[in-house]
Structure formats: C-alpha cells, structure tokens
C-alpha cells in the first residue's frame, strides 16, 4: 500500500494505480475525456490535470497517466488546475463546438466564454476510436495519419478498410460524434448550460431551476428572499 495525501486527506492506494484511479476510489471527481476504463491511457486531452507537490515547485500533471507515489501531495481542484482545465476545454470546444460531450463538460466546469474562433472540425484527436478499434475490437482499421495541423484519423488510403468489422465502436466512443442538442441558441459557441440546472437552494422556489453553474453556492436566491 502506498500512502499519499490528496486534497489534505491521507489516503492509501495500491501500487500501480494512477492518481486518477486513487482519486476516484476516494470519490474525488476529476473530469476526463481521453480516458476510458477499458483502454490504455493516452494522456492527450489534459482535462484530468491535477497539481502535485507544494509551494513554488508544484506542477500540473495528467492524473490518468501519473502513478501514485509514496508521500506525494496532490490537489485535484486548485485555482491553477481549474484555470488550466477550462483553457483545455475552451481550446477543444473551439475545435469541435458541435460536440455534446464537450459542451456538457464546458457547462459543468464553468466555461463561460469562448475567445477562439470556432473551427467546426469533427475530431479533437483524443485517440479513443483508434484505441477501441485496436484494443477491444482487435481490428486496427483506423489510425492517426499525417502530422501537425494536417493530422487526421482515417483508414489506410482513406478507403473502406478490409479489416474493419463495422462494429461501430469507434463512433460509439467518439466524443465529437454525438452532436449537441438543437435547443435554445444552437448556433452559439457555448451553449446554455442546461446540464447544470439544479433545484434552487431554497424550497420556496418550488419547480424553479437554478441556472448558476455553481448551483446552490452563489447565494443569489437567498439575497432575493431577504429583499
């Protein structure tokens, strides 16, 4: 057993666990995109960043690839972590603003503005499709091709692959394949954060839903009540 400190808690983890596994075991939430329990780690999306170490020498690492270490001090939700995560989301969302998964993550983690020009691509290069095709379907029909800004996912020679099983797993797992809803203001870069609607903190408001992303924490409704 390995002892480490996470968000001030003394925790124990098994040798070989990643920080993400340890955090989830203790119920600490860390957002992920390119991680999937059934696939090897990829470390590409950087949403699962956590801060390790203390003071000026602390640094951000991807928790899905970083193994637990004896005595390590980890923080999963510092201001620096939150800022970095929102930045990653903002960048990915500008690549594929039509992705439901990304829009949902954006509303959940409080991304409220978009500074980059949307590019409307259909891929954020998370590599999930490539890994599921190889590791779970044993097909190896698709893969990364080219380099830099020409990088893409495709079959050899962009033709129908002889080894593809037509299983659909690649589409099932792709975070960019499921489109966001066409609800209110479907053409905006960041959608309306319906996902974070929660009951208001005060029972008096009955059926009303709170639209603040940190539902129940802002206290706006309490102040209104006082008036």
């Amino acid at each position, binding site marked *: 057993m390995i002892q480490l400190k996470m968000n001030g808690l003394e925790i124990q983890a098994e040798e070989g666990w990643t920080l993400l596994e340890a955090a989830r075991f203790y119920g600490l939430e860390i957002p992920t995109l390119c991680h999937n329990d059934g696939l090897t780690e990829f470390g590409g999306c950087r949403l699962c960043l956590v801060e390790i170490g203390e003071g000026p020498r602390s640094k951000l690492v991807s928790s899905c690839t970083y193994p637990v270490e004896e005595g390590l001090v980890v923080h999963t939700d510092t201001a620096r972590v939150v800022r970095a995560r929102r930045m990653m989301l903002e960048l990915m969302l500008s690549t594929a603003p039509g992705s439901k998964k990304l829009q949902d993550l954006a509303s959940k983690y409080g991304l409220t503005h978009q500074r980059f020009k949307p590019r409307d691509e259909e891929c954020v290069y998370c590599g999930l499709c490539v890994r599921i095709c190889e590791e779970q379907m044993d097909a*190896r*029909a698709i*893969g990364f*091709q*080219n380099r830099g800004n020409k990088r893409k996912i495709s079959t*050899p*020679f962009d033709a129908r692959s002889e*080894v593809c099983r037509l299983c659909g797993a690649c589409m099932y797992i792709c975070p960019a394949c499921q489109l966001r809803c066409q609800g209110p203001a479907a053409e905006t870069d960041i959608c309306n954060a319906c996902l974070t609607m929660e009951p208001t903190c005060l029972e008096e408001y009955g059926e009303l839903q709170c639209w603040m992303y940190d539902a129940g924490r802002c206290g706006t409704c309490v102040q209104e009540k006082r008036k």
Partner: protein
Amino acid sequence: MNAMQEQIRSIIHKHEGLKKNLIAILLDIQSENAYLPPEALRTVASELAVPLIDIVGLATFYRAFSLKPRGRHLVTVCLGTACHVRGGPKILSEFEKRLAVEPGETTPDKQFTLETVACLGCCAIGPVVVVDRDYYGHTTIQRVNTILKKYQRGNKPKATKRVAKHA
C-alpha cells in the same frame, strides 16, 4: 507474384525481414519508385505482419515519404520563422505561379514537385530553397526562374552552386 512484389520482397530480405527495419525498408522502396505505392505498403504489411494502418501512419508522418508519385525534381521552399520573415511566402507563391501547382503537388509533366518545409537549420542564409540536393540561399523572386531553368528538361544541372554553412 508480380514485379512490384518481387522488388519489395528482395528489399525486405535485404533488411533481414525485421520489423525494426521498417523505416529503412520504406526508404528503399521510396528511392526505387520515387514514392510509396499503396500496393507496396500492402505487401510490406503482410510480409512483416505489421498492421497496414501502422505503416500508413508512419509513411504519412515523415516528410521523407510520399504516397503520391513525385516529379523528377523536388523543389522545397523553406517557410520556417526566419525564412518566413525574409520573404519565404513570396518565393513560394512565385514557384506556385511558375509551376502552376500548389505545395504537395506535382506538375503534369512530372518534372517538378513543390513542397514546403519548416526550417532547414540554415536560417542565416534565408530565404532558403532546396532543389533535390542543392541549396539556394538568399533567394529572391527574380532568381526563382533562373533556378527552375537549370532543372528544366534537357538542362542537366551541372556544377550547381552549393552553399556552404558560412555563406
């Protein structure tokens, strides 16, 4: 077994049929054919028992490989930072205009292929143009035509100026 397959097999044989020599094998195929024909890659995949997608991924990653037939001469214009600020893009558009192709394309007469590169490591002589193995430093729009002429059909490029490091 056709000629292509035979050629591939002898190349693979030369490299002891080892997976770790994949890049060397592809380089040999590339220099024999001036590009990597799809059929050749399929043969390599089955001979070495490497998934075709991995070979394609590798062949599209490195600039040394091309999946499209290349022309007799390869013209590479540097668009790295140093060459960019010294007018690399203007040189490139001059080549585009004269050859009537875009980067990555080959002229219909199969004489020239135009490519771009991001820094060749000799920024001091930028803007740099490389034709086959000849380096041209301090290129200007006016010199583009002179450079091309040397390689045009019939003109055997002899005694081309090679720019040394200190030029």
